C-alpha cells in the first residue's frame, strides 16, 4: 500500500543546469479527476534581507538524503490526511530574485486536506531536508539557517540528548 501511494508522489531535486522550475509539470502531475482541489506553494527569492540587497541565492544539497527525506515527508503527509497526489520540486544552483526555489503541489478530494498537506510539506522541507542556501549580497555572502531546523533541533535535544532529528513517522512502515 505504501509503495502504491509512493507512485503518486513526484519528488524532483533539480540540478543547477535545469533552469526555472516548470510549475505546470507539477500542477499537472497532481491533477486528478477525483480531486476538488489542488493546493500549491511556491518559495521565491526575495530582494532584501535586513536592509541588505540580495543579488541571488545559491542552493546545494546532500542529494540522495534530500530525496529520501522528501519521499518520507510525502509518506508522512499521507499518514495524516487523505490525499490524492503530491509533488515537490527543489531547484539547486543559482536562483535569482523573484524566481522559484521550491514548488509544492497537493491534490485531494476536499480542499482542507490539500491545503494542510501543502503547508506540512513546505514546513517539513524547511525543518528537515538537507538543502542549504547561500544569500549573496553586493559585498558578502552568508549561509542561511532555517529557524524551523534550529527550533526542532533544540526541542529534540531538550527531550533527549540522544534523540534523532527525524520526526516520528505516521505513515511509513
Amino acid at each position, binding site marked *: 500500500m505504501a509503495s502504491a501511494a509512493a507512485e503518486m508522489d513526484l519528488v524532483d531535486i533539480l540540478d543547477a543546469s535545469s533552469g526555472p522550475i516548470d510549475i505546470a509539470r507539477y500542477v499537472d502531475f497532481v491533477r486528478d479527476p477525483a480531486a476538488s482541489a489542488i493546493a500549491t506553494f511556491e518559495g521565491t527569492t526575495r530582494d532584501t534581507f535586513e536592509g541588505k540587497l540580495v543579488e541571488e541565492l545559491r542552493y546545494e544539497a546532500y542529494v540522495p538524503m534530500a530525496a529520501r527525506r522528501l519521499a518520507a515527508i510525502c509518506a508522512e503527509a499521507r499518514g495524516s490526511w487523505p490525499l490524492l497526489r503530491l509533488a515537490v520540486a527543489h531547484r539547486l544552483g543559482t536562483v535569482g530574485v523573484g524566481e522559484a526555489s521550491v514548488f509544492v503541489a497537493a491534490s485531494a478530494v476536499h480542499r482542507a486536506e490539500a491545503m494542510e498537506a501543502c503547508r506540512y510539506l513546505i514546513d517539513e522541507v524547511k525543518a528537515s531536508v538537507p538543502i542549504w542556501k547561500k544569500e549573496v549580497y553586493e559585498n558578502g555572502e552568508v*549561509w542561511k*539557517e532555517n529557524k524551523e531546523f534550529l527550533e526542532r533541533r533544540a526541542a529534540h535535544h531538550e527531550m533527549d540528548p540522544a534523540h534523532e532529528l527525524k520526526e516520528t513517522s505516521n505513515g511509513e512502515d
Partner: protein
Amino acid sequence: MEIAGGLNDGTGEMNESKVEKSAGQDIKIKVLFFARARDLTGVSETSLEMPDGSTAGDCMRNLLVKFPSLQEIYNSMVLAINEEYAAESTLLTSKDELAIIPPISGG
C-alpha cells in the same frame, strides 16, 4: 529511537565486524562536509579509520581534533549516517557514510 550503523545493506561486512569484535578491527568511515562545514574544513569529504564499536560521537570528536574550526558549528549541526539522521550515540560499521549537516536552509 536510534538507528544502528550499517542498516540493511545486506553485505557480509556487518556480520564480519560482529564476529571480529573481540579482535577490535578498525572500521573505515567516509565523512561528507556540506555548506558551512565544507567552508570550515576546506574539504568536501574525508575518511576516518576508527576502532570497531565507535559511535558517531566518537567520530565527531575525532573530526574536531582534525578540523578544530568545526567547533563553530558543533552546537547547531546534526549528523546523518547512510542518509538518515542519527544520534551521536549511534554505532558505526565499516563503510558507513557520515554526513556533517550544518543548519539547513532549503525552501
